[in-house]
């Protein structure tokens, strides 16, 4: 092997740079890394959505590390794959908490997986940060819920549909599991309170995508608005069939609680144009903070067409809430995080969020978006400020009569 001078210099420079690199990084971070878990499905049917959420968490951690870490220590993410299976989720949660001794895990997407890991977090005293909007009806001292509960999606939505859109007859449709059924329960109360009525509530198997009969039923029912709690890829087949059977979003709009930028992109924007969704966050929110968030996310996942949506934003900002809680208590234990996170406020891409001191759910701003021909939403209604999360609103919980407090769930109220 013959070296010429230029090549030798190049090699030497590379080698010395490589040698210097660990020294540089150890100067930046003198201490051991703080380990946190990220528990999402990397494989299986739910991986499409959950990989995006994992990306939200990873991006937040990368940004925190670039800005100096937490308590002067870098954050290291231990990624585990829940494989779209609740049983695997619970095994991997045990592994993270017991074997890796990690006190904080970001993760879970479905209620089924959250319910599967909950006993482990409660028994072993660890904290779960859960970002998905869900059906409420849960009060755990070991979970920080950064997604919306029904009152943050429906309490403005139903009255608005009745008053502003002038709709009186609701057809409620959903996938057949706990979230759509609980959402239907809350909606029915609100529909009746708003002076309208519901003509049917129908469910389709989870993941089912044959809508011919259901859409024809909607057509025959005499309903003037559809409230959709359908989830996953069934959504795409639903909106396509809706248009293909000649129903129009102007006459009979679909008002959804799950349909987000992701599903709109996957179905083709022309099928959703004119329909509505209620979420605390939309990609179209026109603030510099949100624009920067979208740009950074697209760079992070290396996809210039990537879309952001509610759960992704929540997956991202919950990491910062955790950081603030840790820095406030100066301790990594579950008890310290729980104490530190009460009332913690953060300026998220979609606006201000606050962790409720009572039930550890987040204060969020309900917004209603109408989908446009370009696949983005136009925010047609929004609360002026974040509202208090009430996970038991279906059972009569109000701001002055809390069921879930910092002492835990008051079960007596639930029965009454």
């Amino acid at each position, binding site marked *: 092997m013959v070296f010429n001078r230029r090549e030798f210099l190049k090699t030497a420079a590379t080698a010395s740079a490589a040698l210097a690199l660990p020294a540089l990084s150890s100067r930046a971070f003198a201490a051991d890394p703080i380990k946190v878990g990220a528990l999402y499905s990397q*494989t*299986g*049917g739910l*991986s*499409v959505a959950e*990989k995006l959420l994992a990306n939200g968490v990873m991006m937040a951690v990368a940004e925190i590390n670039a800005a100096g870490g937490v308590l002067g220590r870098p954050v290291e993410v231990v990624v585990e794959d829940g494989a779209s299976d609740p049983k695997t989720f619970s095994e991997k949660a045990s592994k993270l908490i017991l074997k890796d001794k990690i006190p904080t895990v970001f993760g879970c997407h479905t209620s089924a997986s959250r319910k599967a890991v909950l006993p482990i977090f409660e028994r072993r005293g660890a904290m779960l940060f859960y970002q998905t909007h869900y059906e409420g009806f849960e009060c755990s001292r070991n979970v920080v819920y950064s997604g919306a509960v029904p009152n943050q999606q429906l309490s403005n939505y139903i009255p608005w549909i009745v008053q502003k859109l002038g709709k009186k007859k609701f057809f409620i449709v959903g996938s*057949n599991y706990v979230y759509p059924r609980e959402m239907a329960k809350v909606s029915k109360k609100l529909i009746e309170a708003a002076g309208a009525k519901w003509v049917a509530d*129908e*469910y*389709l*198997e989870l*993941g*089912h*995508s*044959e809508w*011919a*009969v*259901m859409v*024809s*039923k909607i057509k025959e029912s005499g309903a003037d608005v559809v409230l959709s709690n359908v989830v996953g*890829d069934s959504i*795409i*087949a639903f909106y*396509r*069939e809706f*248009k*293909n*059977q*000649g129903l129009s979003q102007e006459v009979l709009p679909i008002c959804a609680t799950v349909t987000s930028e*992701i*599903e709109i*992109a*996957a*179905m*083709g924007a022309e099928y959703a144009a004119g329909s509505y969704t209620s979420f605390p966050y939309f990609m179209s929110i026109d603030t510099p903070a949100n624009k920067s968030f979208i740009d950074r996310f697209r760079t992070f996942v290396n996809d210039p067409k990537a879309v952001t949506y509610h759960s992704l934003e929540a997956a991202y900002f919950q990491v910062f809430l955790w950081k603030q809680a840790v820095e406030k208590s100066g301790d990594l234990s579950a008890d310290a995080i729980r104490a530190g996170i009460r009332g913690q406020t953060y300026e998220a891409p979609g606006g201000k969020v606050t962790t409720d001191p009572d039930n550890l759910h987040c204060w969020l701003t309900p917004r209603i978006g109408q989908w446009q021909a370009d696949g983005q939403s136009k925010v047609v209604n929004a609360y002026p400020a974040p509202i208090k999360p009430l996970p038991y609103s279906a059972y009569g919980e109000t701001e002055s009569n809390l069921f879930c407090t910092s002492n835990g769930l008051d079960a007596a109220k639930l029965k009454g």
Partner: protein
Amino acid sequence: MLDILFIGLSLGSILLLVALGLAITYGAMGVINMAHGEMVMIGAYVAVLSGIWLKASLLLAIPLAFVVTALLGLLIERVVVRRLYGRLLDTLLATWGIAILLQQAVRLEFGLSFFGIHVEGLGAGLQNVAVPSYLQGTFRLASADINAYRTFIIVVTAVLTLATWFILYRTAAGMQVRAIIRNPKMAAACGIDVKRVNAMTFAFGSGLAGVAGVMMSGFKTVFPDMGTTMVVDGFMVVVTGGVGSLFGTILSSGLLGEINALVAIGTNDILARAVVFGVVILVILVKPSGLFSFKGR
């Protein structure tokens, strides 16, 4: 009433679209092809990719998908299935393995982590295929609003079924296939090149699945798992109709489609699926070889 019958017909034709390819491969070769659903998935991805790369419409994607999946089918037959003839359980397992390989390949975009290849339109995300505007919406027929896209599916299915019938019953190659269905050893003894005919049959069956995939992509989401559940529906039809009988496959898919639609209109979709499976179980209890099977020799 007309619109309910139409929905039943459209459900039936989708079942037939998936079952047609299965019926001839299972009938002729006795191979339970668990990768059939993945052929449907790949057909759907051909529609996605031809839309992105060639700006081709859905109509052009149909022959493209047929060719791509038929070639893939030929490859699978040559490399794996050919070595396992007469070993029913082994082919079941092997094709199931191929199904998982194909799914993961799409999900990883041909092994993203190894080669770093990024194929636009392929990958773990949900995809969609643009449907030409004349196939969206409805048209009026005898005071009922008929769904244009579903009519299109029914027409395509009818054309494919006719083509299959023509090949099976009016060509020399079809006669060889029918001879193999009845008795492969006797057919071989009469000088039919069973291996070659089987390979062609498998390729043709796979091609039909690819076309089914293009049709599906117009109203369903395209994603790596989409084929898994379809294979069950396909076998349901084949077993009910009678193995090796084209006529039985057509009738049983129509029958199951109509039952599904009528029960779903009367009650709900979840019960309808249970009733359909109930009927299938009843049929195989009463007539174990299916409604329209041949008498074996």
